[in-house]
Each structure stands twice: as C-alpha cells, then as structure tokens.
C-alpha cells in the first residue's frame, strides 16, 4: 500500500508539473503588462520598471519558471498581481466557499441519487424507472448556467422560497456579523451559535448546491441502476433470495455493496469536475469562491493567481483519485494496490 501511494504521489507530482508548465507558457503568451497592473494607475515608468524587477518579470521565461517551481517547493506560490496578497493566502480565503458548495452538492447528490438508482433498478421498465432515468439524463445534460437561471427564476422570483444570490442576507453583515474560523460559512455560523446567520447561509447555499448537484446526481443514479441490474441475476443474489431475505435487504445490502465501487470512483471524478463546474454557478449566484477569484485573475492577466488556481484544482483531482483508489481497495477485497 505504501509503495502504491508513493508511486501515485510521484506520478501526481509529474502531472502537476506538466500542468504548471503548460499554464505558465500559455499565461505568459497572452499580451499584457502585469507590472503596470501591479504598480497601479498613477505609477511612473520608473515605478513600473521597479515592479517588473520586484515581480521577477525582467528575467528570462525559463528562469521565471524554475524560480516558480522552487517557490512551490518551499510553500511560496507567488504573489497575486491584482490582490497583492500571497496566492496561497488568496486560495485559502476563496477555496472554502467553493469547497463548501461542492461538498454540499455532493451530499445532496449522493443522498438523492443512490436511493433513486435503487428504486429504478428494483422496478425496471415501470413509470418510476422511466421518470428517474429521464430526470438523470436531464441532470447530466442540462447546461449548468441555464439550470442556475431557471432555479433562480422559479425558486426565488416566482415561489419566493430561497434567496437569489450571495452567501447570506446583507443585513446580517451589521446585525449578526459572522466570525470566521474555518472559512465554511455554515460551519462557522454553527460553531459560533450565530443562528440567524446559520439560517441565512444554509438557505443561500441550497440553490447553488442543487444546481451543482444535478450532474453528479444524474450520473450516480444511472451508475447505481446499471450496476445493480448487472448483478441482480448473479448466483449470490439468487442465494440470498432463496434464503428468504427480504427484497429490500437484498437490494440495499447485497446488491448495493457491489455498486459502491464504481460509485466511489465517480464521486472522486465529479468532485474535481464540480469544483471547476462551480465557477459558472458562482458567477451566477454571486458566490465568492474560487470561480470569482479565477475570473478576476484572468481579467487582470494575473499569472501567479491563474497558476495557483490551476495547480490547486490539479492537486484536488489527484488527491481525490488517490483517496478513491484506497477506498475501493478497502471496500473490495478483489482489488490489490501494487
């Protein structure tokens, strides 16, 4: 197991290095003057030149790249051109909001899609199955920005059930300000006992989380259905039925056990995918996460910040996949990690 993890970690470093080189070259090929942006609108030519030296932009590109790699190794991901803060600090500020959204979405997706997948497999060809399959296809195929707009229109504008956008009601900024500890608003409100803020942050989370959840929910429901139908005719299942085990337990306990493996793999993949997918959702729901930070970084040609976001996403992908491999091995005795 240790050898496997070490090998995967080494591969992950190679993948991340490739991603960095590619992003670095592309980001530097885009015309723009980060030094002028850094120095500000009133800067003189001398101040811009000084900024260029400070940012190391006067050095050849390979030297800049080597210096960037050395910085990463020592925990220095560079300084953002548009915020003037260390990129790691910016990521630590923005990432919790995105992670909170994606985690909430995945909780909703798993909680909804696994039972629906089982129901669909239990009564194949019935109206419920057709409805669930149609819903799953809709969830997977519907453009996320369109769904976000429709949800806003229906749940906020027409039904007035949920707030339109933002992290919490603006009035709470003054009446019940949130003390930040983890960066996860719902968690922070909960641990500080800030109940009005808890209600507001949770309600603001629901709509964007539902939108982000649509794709993983559709995917997982279809996977569960297919996996369960694949194994429903196998001998161990027939044996369980012959022993008189209730049908609900056969599905929930014996068939689902085999379905968990691909589902776990799918969760890992959609976690990374959703983290990127959430960028659009964040923009529509005015959610101050990585998406907003990435958009501002691209708009200001902020190379260190663009690299930081890309590297962060790459790392999340790699770690999620590694965790799934380990979990799969733990769940399925047929899998050996070598």
């Amino acid at each position, binding site marked *: 197991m240790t050898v496997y993890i070490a090998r995967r970690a080494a591969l992950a470093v190679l993948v991340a290095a490739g991603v960095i080189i590619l992003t670095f070259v592309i980001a530097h090929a885009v*015309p*723009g*003057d980060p030094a*002028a*942006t850094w*120095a*500000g*609108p*009133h800067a*003189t*030519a001398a101040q*811009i*030149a000084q900024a260029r030296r400070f940012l190391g932009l006067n050095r050849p590109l390979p030297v800049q790249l080597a210096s960037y790699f050395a910085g990463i190794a020592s925990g220095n991901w560079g300084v953002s051109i*548009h*915020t003037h803060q260390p990129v790691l600090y910016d990521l630590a500020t923005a990432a919790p909001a995105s992670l909170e959204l994606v985690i*909430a979405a995945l*909780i*909703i997706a*798993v*909680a909804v899609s*696994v039972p629906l997948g089982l129901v669909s497999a239990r009564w194949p060809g019935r109206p419920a199955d057709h409805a669930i399959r149609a819903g799953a296809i809709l969830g997977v195929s519907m453009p996320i920005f369109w769904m976000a*707009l429709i949800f*806003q*229109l229906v749940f*906020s*504008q027409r039904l*007035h059930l*949920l*707030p*339109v*956008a*933002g*992290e919490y*009601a*603006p*009035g709470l*900024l*003054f009446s019940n300000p949130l003390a930040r500890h983890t960066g996860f608003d719902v968690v922070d409100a909960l641990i500080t006992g800030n109940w009005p803020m*808890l*209600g*507001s*942050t*949770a*309600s*603001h*989370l*629901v709509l964007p989380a539902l939108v982000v959840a649509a794709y993983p929910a559709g995917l997982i429901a279809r996977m569960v259905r297919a996996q369960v139908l694949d194994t429903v005719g196998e001998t161990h299942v027939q044996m369980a039925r012959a022993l008189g085990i209730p049908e609900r337990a056969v599905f*929930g306990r014996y068939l689902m056990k085999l379905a968990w493996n691909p589902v776990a793999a799918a969760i890992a993949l959609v976690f990374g995918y959703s983290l990127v997918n959430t960028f659009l959702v964040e*923009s*529509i*729901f*005015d959610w*101050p996460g990585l998406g*907003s*930070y990435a*958009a*501002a970084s691209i*708009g*200001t*040609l902020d190379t260190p910040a663009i690299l930081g976001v890309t590297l962060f996403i790459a790392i999340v992908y790699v770690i999620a996949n590694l965790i799934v491999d380990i979990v799969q091995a733990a769940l399925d005795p047929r899998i050996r990690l070598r």
Partner: protein
Amino acid sequence: MKRPGALLLACGSALTLALAACGGASPQQHAAAHAVSQTFTYDTFAPVMVDGWDPATEYSDGIIAMSNMYETLTRYDPATHQVEPLLATSWTSAPNGLSWTFQLRHGVHFHTGRLMTASAAKAAIERTTKLNGGAAYVWGAVKTIAAPGPYTLVFHLKYPSPLDLEASADYSAYIYDTKAAGRGSLTKWLNSPHDAGTGPYTLQTWNKGQEFEVIQKAFPQYWGGWSGSHFNRVVFRVVPQDTTSAQLLRSGQVSFVEQMSPTLWSSLRGAPGVRLVSAASWQNLLGQLNSKTLSLPERQAISYGINYKGIIAALQGAAIPSSGIVPAGLLGHFSTLPNYSYDPARATQLLNRIGYGPGKKPLNLSLTYTQGDTNEQVVATLMKSSLAKLNINLSVQSLAWPTQWGKAKSASAAQHQDIFMEYWWPDYADPYSWFVNLLQSEKQPYFNLSYYSNPGLDKQINKVESLVATNRSAGQQLYHSMQVTILRQAPIAFLYNDNYQYAMSADFAGFQVNQAYPNVVFAYDLKPLGS
C-alpha cells in the same frame, strides 16, 4: 447499527432543508424586511474602487462611492443648469473674472472631527494642485488662494475661468482634511483606506475583491442633519451577472442597479416594486485608435467601417447617436459636424490605397474592452463583424478595467492595443475634459490612449477655456473647429452617447439623474418610503 452513513446523510439533508426553510423568505417577509431597511444597496457589475482612495487623484469609478463621502464647494444642478451651494453658500467674481470669493458654510465637520474652515479648504485645494493627478487641471487657472477670514476663501486667477463651475467638478475638487494623518503620509493613510471628507456618509469597511465591496455609514455630525427620512447605510455590492442583478432587484435585495443589458432592463417594465429610469447622459463610448500603429487612412477606414446604426439598434435604447465628441446639452455640441457613418465602400477605397482591404492583405488589429460590461461586449462583437467584411481581423479581449488601462499605458509600445474602448464623461458641466485628457499630447500616456499628438490642436486646447470665460461664442466656435480637426484625423471613433438605463427599487423617492456626476447616486437625498 444499520447504515449509519445513510442515516447521517438523511439527517444532514433534512437539517439543511429545515434551515433553508427558516432562512428562506416569503414574499411578505421580503417586503417587510425591505420596508424597514435603512440600507441603500448599489449594485455594480465591477468593483468601484480601482484607483485608490485619495480624493485628490482618484480618477475612475471611485466617484460612485466617494461622492457620498466627500463634498465640493458647489454642485451642478441638472434642473436649473447652474451650480448650487454646497460647502460654499455664496460666491462672487470680480468684473474682470480674475478673482473669485467664496463664503463657506459654518459648522461643517470633517469625518476626522476637525472643523472645515477656509484655511482647511485652501490646504486641500493646494495639495490637490500640487499632486497634479486626476482632474487637478480644474484648478489650472488658479494662481494663489487666500483665506482672509475663517470662512472666506479668495482665489486669484492667472486667466479668467468659470471657477464656480470648476469647483463643482466630480474629480479633484473635493474639500478634505489634509491633517487627517497627523505627521504621517496622508496618501498612505487615505489608501489604508480612510476618508477625510465632509459628506453625509463615512467609510465603514472596504472588502477588496469581495461581493460587498464598500460599506458606508451615516456620519452623525453631518451639517445637513439626519432629521427626516434617510438611508443610514450605503453598500456597494459587486454582482458580475446582470441577470442576477435583475433577480436581486426584484426580490428587494438591492436598491439600485447601475447597468444591465437593454433587453433585461426592458423586461423589468411593469415588475412590481421596480422603477425604471432612462435619461440622456453626458457620457459617451469611444474607441481610441492607436495613432502610433494605425496610419490616417487606416483610422479613417475603421471609422467608416463601423456600423453605428447597427450598434445603436442592438443596444435598444441604451445608446443614442453621437455627433462629434461633445454630447448634447453641453457647450460645444453641434449636430452638424462631418461625422462618420457606416460606409464600407469608402472604407474599402481607403484600405485599398495602402494595400489592405477585401481581396488584399488582411489588417490584424486588437481591441480591448472592460470585462463585465455587456454593452461594450455588444459593440465589440458588432465591430468585429462589420470590420471583418473589410478584411480587418479584430482580435477582441475583455479585461478588467485596471488591466486594460495598464496595458494601454505600458512603457512597451508592443503591449498597446490598437483600439482601446472606454467611456468618457466630463469632469464638470463643460466639454474641456474630453479635449485636455484624451487629445492633448502626453509624454507618458495617461488617458490619451490613442497616443495622438497635434501641436496645433494642443495650442487650441490651451486657449479654449479662457476664451469661453471671456467670449463664449468664440469659445463655442473654437470647440467646433477642434472637433472638425479630430473627425478628419480620426484618433477616436465616437461610437455612441450613453442613454442611462437605471433600474431601482420603488421603495425610495428623491432619485435624480445628474449628468455631471455619472452613475452617482447621492444617497443622502433619497427618502426611504417604508420607514
């Protein structure tokens, strides 16, 4: 224990939904919450404070927030077309126009607690002039300032100038406490950020890069007092998506939306609780054509190659045709100038002469516009399409405003865009700002981002303000002649004049469009109706 995971998930989901139900609001709750709200929320598509917090040098969208914190000696009134008292209660000028005396309001406090006196106002104007940033040129005619009494301010001028009008400028005319930082650097102190104005609101917090970017609170010692109905807090909320802005407005979560696409704006007509305001502005959209990289025939061909009518039609009421550089309603506006219109044949002819155009070499150009501005996006798309017919390949890039500005001002000419799209509006109710900022030669580019230099025009620009002060009709004629020159030389494509399309909550009264202060809402003048 059976399936603890599923149980936990179910509990989690139930808890989330329960909390959501608690936090969600019924229409009645929304209405009630909004009715008692004392917070005015200004929805903007991009951050407002991009050019620092120094009232002497800020020269960008900061005006939107700063106009609630800082005040000027006079303020332009669009109803009377004259300047009205603000920090000055009255003023007179000498018959020769070479000196002006302002009587200042008594009992005005800076947000630092100090009393505003004539010597404090003198110090502020002198600092602004010394720093020479932003629109400091509005004090360009001033030779010396004296404070013969605690509330009497006397300006001695180098040449006659309409100082009462210039003192109403939206930039660099603010009166602020120059002693706010004590012995430290005032610039650093202001950019920390702090404010040192006399306005009705003072800075509470600045959350750079965040959704709730600027929060201002009422200044209790404001000279105008707080009796009657007023908002006690002003929030500037950055909402990049205009569809979200529209939804936030409908649900009462923002009070005022600065810009949305014309289609979306029209769709709000008749929406309950929403008021739409449309008004001609003194703001225009310009395409500055890089005169260092583009020859005269190229600039003229581009000017003929833009489908102005198509742009105006696409913007559905948000744009009106321009004539020259000066919008209607200002001195120097003429509807009979030799303006460009869409003429592909003429453009082709001009391009063919220099080896470009259809069937010849392609002309590859770059254009930048401000990220998030839906109107500029429409214009850029239509320009790309109409210029493509002339074999001009326009590479369009949307960038954050500070980045596209930085790119245009870069020391390296290779970084400069060929077409720089930006809005311009006057610094006070006068056309001078367009000429002095966009067309006068600059060694180091600041806003003359077509890098245009014409010594003859420079001389005319230097002369025009004093001419207007002494012989208005001669000044008017000079503005005409300068615009004819500019149209012939084509350093700028005049795309259209803005027609403001504001959407706002019907929960307050007192909003008035003031073209001299573009996109500014003077929150103190608003009356919340629910309180």
